[in-house]
């Protein structure tokens, strides 16, 4: 009897009129957008993996990523660890904004969202430093100064062997993947700014809920999630 009732109820849930997943349409679609975006990032990172596996030699991340502003001797992985912490903390601040939104606390949402925006902007600043440092060392889309010894860079055919495809593409992969991620951070900061302004103008108080903060928060955490795998692929493995 109880089983029959359960089946009956389940059928009713999918009959329309209610949300079977008990989330709003917007939140569900944000989740599915993030699933599709995960496939975009996976395509880039798996390309990196395939090219790296095909190459007998690969630049050592502890040597490539060893610059830290203000410290003149090599400090391997120091700067990227700082960047990771900045992004995690920014993500935490946005979670706190979402939680304050559940309580309809406009001041709380604005305070934590402001900190989240600062964190995102700080991450972008760090990335600008890292990029300009690597470019100043000669890394471009088609050039990799950290290549195997005895190989000349692409375009120079006098003496030495031409660098094999895999290591030559190191710079291309780095700038494409961190660039795509950085673009997500950039748009995330912009959208967080819009949420901050709309909260300040009382749009969500008039609407009666702060669900928009939650949807944008999902996007912001996804950016943090992707960074976990970018960090893994480029700096750790």
């Amino acid at each position, binding site marked *: 009897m109880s089983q029959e009732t359960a089946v009956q109820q389940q059928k009713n849930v999918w009959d329309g009129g209610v*949300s*079977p*997943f*008990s*989330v*709003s349409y917007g*939140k*569900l679609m944000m*989740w*599915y957008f993030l*699933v599709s975006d*995960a*496939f975009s990032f*996976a395509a880039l990172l*798996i*390309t990196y*993996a*395939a090219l*790296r*596996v*095909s*190459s*007998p030699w690969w630049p050592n*991340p*502890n040597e490539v990523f060893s610059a830290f502003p203000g410290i003149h001797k090599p400090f*391997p*992985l120091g700067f990227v*660890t700082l960047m*990771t*912490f900045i992004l*995690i*903390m920014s*993500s*935490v601040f946005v*979670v*706190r904004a*979402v*939680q304050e939104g*559940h*309580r*309809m606390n406009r001041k709380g949402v604005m305070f934590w969202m402001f900190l989240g925006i600062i964190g995102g902007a700080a991450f972008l600043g760090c990335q600008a430093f890292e990029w300009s440092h690597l470019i100043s060392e000669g890394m471009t889309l088609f050039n990799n100064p950290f290549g195997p010894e005895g190989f000349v860079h692409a375009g120079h055919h006098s003496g030495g062997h031409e660098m*094999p*495809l*895999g290591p030559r593409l190191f710079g291309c992969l780095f700038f494409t993947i961190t660039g795509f991620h950085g673009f997500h951070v950039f748009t995330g900061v912009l959208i967080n700014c819009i949420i901050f302004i709309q909260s300040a103008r009382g749009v969500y108080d008039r609407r009666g*809920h*702060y*669900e928009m903060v*939650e949807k944008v*928060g*999902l996007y912001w*955490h996804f950016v*943090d*999630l992707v960074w*976990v*795998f970018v*960090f*893994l692929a480029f*700096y*750790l*493995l």
Partner: protein
Amino acid sequence: MAEGHQHLSEEAYKSGVKAVWRATAILAVVTIVEVAAALYLGDTLGKAVLNLLFILMSGIKAFFIVAEFMHLRYEMRALIISILAPTFFFVWFIIAFMMDGASWGSLRALWN
């Protein structure tokens, strides 16, 4: 969370805040361990063990971000499955493309 955006009780709010800071501490500790292992354990553990450790720890970080920060563990089971099921394609993608990459490498070595 039947309505998605109903107002929370004080206890639920407090336990939510606590869960978030706990997840933050775990993420911070795992990141520090990862970087320390990359810098100091490379020679002791060997590259293969170290890489396995990095992948496991990144999985832990991904779990806490998705489960706690993105709040997925508190959603309905059907929703969780509909989001996580497609990501299992990655398992095959990674195996297939890395095998392909290894094949490009051996073909190039053969021709050179």
